[in-house]
């Protein structure tokens, strides 16, 4: 570096006009080439430092942290016996009339199968008296004093017929095998989009009634996850993996029932695919009395609907 400076100084202070142009160029080249920009951008010339962090980092905090004062989840002793919550989700105003998703005979892909019968638009299914179907009602997490999910080897069945997933809204206990069936003689694939679990994207053998394709969800999700078919883009269903048995989907009349809840106050999540923000309620507070059934009517105003 010092030599360059000395040369530069000498060349600059001696000479004439032509030398001036030459030295300007030389200056520029030397400046760029020898400047202290080696550190720029933390590039390849910088050797980083490495510190080791123990594997149990943060685990100590989890053990030491006090359990949240969860007055919302059945704080009373379960000795007083469980109760039931049942109810309805009702669309108060007139339901928007949704045309058939696919009319029988329509000119869609694989129409001999996918347009063999009328396929309803299941984004919003409302009964004659306003009951909203396919609404998920569930506890965000297992309540204190609640019973664990049923231990069984029986698989949960997820079927498809005439290019329509059956059921449209499915609750899946974590760890249970989900078997994917097909009642169609054509190609389908099942593609899930979970947040906390691994997704699957696999072809389904036509007419498979045994469920050669199967998988399970390891962890409970905060909200239902979308399931679709890549061959037939209109096919859509929702799965909700839960790690407790306190979850239900409303039937075609908008009714649901969740039994064996510990007595106390519980906060329910109410979720529907065609509601703004998807959550009808994030924390619907319901008090359960031992041995009794608490009836709840959940009103859904039409202004909250968002058909996407």
């Amino acid at each position, binding site marked *: 570096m010092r030599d360059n*400076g000395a040369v530069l*100084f000498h060349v600059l*202070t001696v*000479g004439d*006009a032509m030398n*001036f142009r030459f030295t*300007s160029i030389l*200056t520029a080249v*030397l*400046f760029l080439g*020898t*400047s*202290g*920009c080696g*550190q*720029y*951008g*933390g*590039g*390849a010339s910088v050797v*980083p*430092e*490495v*510190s*080791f*962090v*123990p*594997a149990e*980092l*943060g*685990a100590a*905090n*989890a053990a030491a*942290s*006090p*359990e*949240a004062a969860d007055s919302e989840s059945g704080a009373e002793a379960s000795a007083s016996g469980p109760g039931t919550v049942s109810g309805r989700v009702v669309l108060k105003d007139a339901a928007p009339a949704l045309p058939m998703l696919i009319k029988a005979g329509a000119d869609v892909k*694989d129409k001999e199968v996918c347009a063999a019968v009328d396929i309803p638009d299941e984004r919003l299914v409302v009964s004659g008296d306003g009951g909203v179907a396919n609404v998920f009602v569930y506890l965000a*997490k297992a309540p204190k004093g609640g019973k664990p999910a049923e231990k069984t080897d029986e698989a949960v069945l997820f079927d498809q017929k005439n290019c329509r997933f059956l059921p449209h809204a499915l609750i899946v206990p974590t760890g249970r095998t989900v078997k994917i069936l097909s009642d169609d*003689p054509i*190609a389908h694939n099942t*593609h899930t*989009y979970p*947040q*906390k679990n*691994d997704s*699957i*994207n*696999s*072809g389904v*053998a*036509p007419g498979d009634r045994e469920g050669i394709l199967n998988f399970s969800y*390891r962890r409970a999700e*905060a*909200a239902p996850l*979308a399931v679709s078919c*890549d*061959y037939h883009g209109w096919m859509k269903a929702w799965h909700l993996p839960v790690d407790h048995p306190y979850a239900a989907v409303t039937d075609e009349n908008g009714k649901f029932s969740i039994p064996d809840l510990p007595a106390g106050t519980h906060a329910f999540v109410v979720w529907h695919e065609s509601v703004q*923000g998807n959550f009808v309620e*994030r924390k619907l507070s319901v008090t359960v009395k031992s041995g009794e059934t608490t009836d709840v009517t959940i009103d859904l105003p039409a202004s909250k609907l968002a058909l996407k």
Partner: protein
Amino acid sequence: MSLTSRTVRGLTAAVSLLLWQSGCSDFESSFVYSERTQSLITEAQNGMKSKSKDDSGDEAVMPGVKKLVDDRFGSPQHLNAWLKLPIDFGGTAGTIGEVGENNTVVLAFDEASGGSPKAVEMIQILSGDCAGEVVSVSAWNAVTSTATLTTALKAAPKSGDSIVTGGGEVLKNGRSLYQRHCSHCHGTSGDGNGPTAQYLYPRPRDYRHGVFKFTTTNDQSKASREDLARILKQGIAGTYMPSFLLLPDSEIHSLVEYVRFLAMRGEFERRLVNELASDYSQTAVTGRIKGGEKRADILKDLSEFLASDFPDSVTTTGDELAEAWTAADTEDAKVIPSVARVPDSPESRRRGRELYLSKALNCADCHGIYGQGNGPQTTIFEKNPVTNELYPEPGLHDVWDNVNQPRNLTYGIYRGGRRPVDLFGRIHAGIKGSRMPSFKNQPHEDIWHIVNYVLSIPFEVEPGAAAKPAQTAAVTVP
């Protein structure tokens, strides 16, 4: 007064020298946080103060996503090697044997990690009361494996504490090599958004989903080290990813470990955000406030969540990450055909084409009836299945929100490798992150028939020729 040329030259010299000496100011590079992280409310990103006091009497801080990620992964120039992760950070691992007087300790090194090193200059203590401390070693006796430590430690090291010496070399080399060879496309954080990325199609991989497309593992497994090393050595034909075959194996190893480090960092960050996003993203909170909740109540909820449930989720996420990446390197994760390749023959190719066009598999739906990658699915407009927003361009999209162009099989360019077993793996396991599903339940002979057909497509005299029966000579001998 006019400036003489001599004065001007002198001034130029002085100014140049000044500028040159000062150089550019020190620049500290940093990892970017993903857009998803930045879509959370600030309290979820940066953490909140808890009501309880910690040991030193200060208000404890419940870390948000950013601190949790930084504590475990550090910044590019100050990397943190999180021992839970299945990454070869380099260095020799060992344990403290006996603790002697005068600041001497006997160290025991595993044979598996290279045995007792010849020179030990510093050790980092990983467990026990002195966890995290770095100590210089003034004298190292390789015969008795005794190290004399230069400084007294805050707490007493105990026999059985684990240590590492010379740690981090692989990661350091990986980082330097990555900056030189990879970061201009893949970005400092492995986000596929380096300076040159905007000019490339297809875009460079964004590692932060923890998903790599071209692997030899099954559809539920991550990419193995072997897969990543193969990509480095062979490049990806038909894309801008070049081959780095001229790099020595040790450098390839360092790069693979650093890429896995970046992928795990991105995936860890993403999974933490997934725990929080449904209730505490900015959109969700705005919706909740509109629905009648008060912001103070929402923050109270978040505070309770960060204190009680979130630490467990963080631990579980780390465990699952470690498990998944470790499992990827096992034999069980690989796709192994149960039958040897069906020999290539016109009959096999015809059977392959039958399957290709069959209603059961319908490859033509995306790949086109002649394999030109122009099937009907390339013209549909679809919605993002998670957000339900319509994509602006037609065609199916991959998990990185890029248009997923089905391969034009007539070129004979196969990105994941052109060995028949590579194509077998492509069909069996699908392509992770893309819309190519796995067909793992097809009989393996059928998959080989399709492989034979696909390999013959570039050589067809006319499209679909494989479907026509073999022509016999038209000459009739009178």
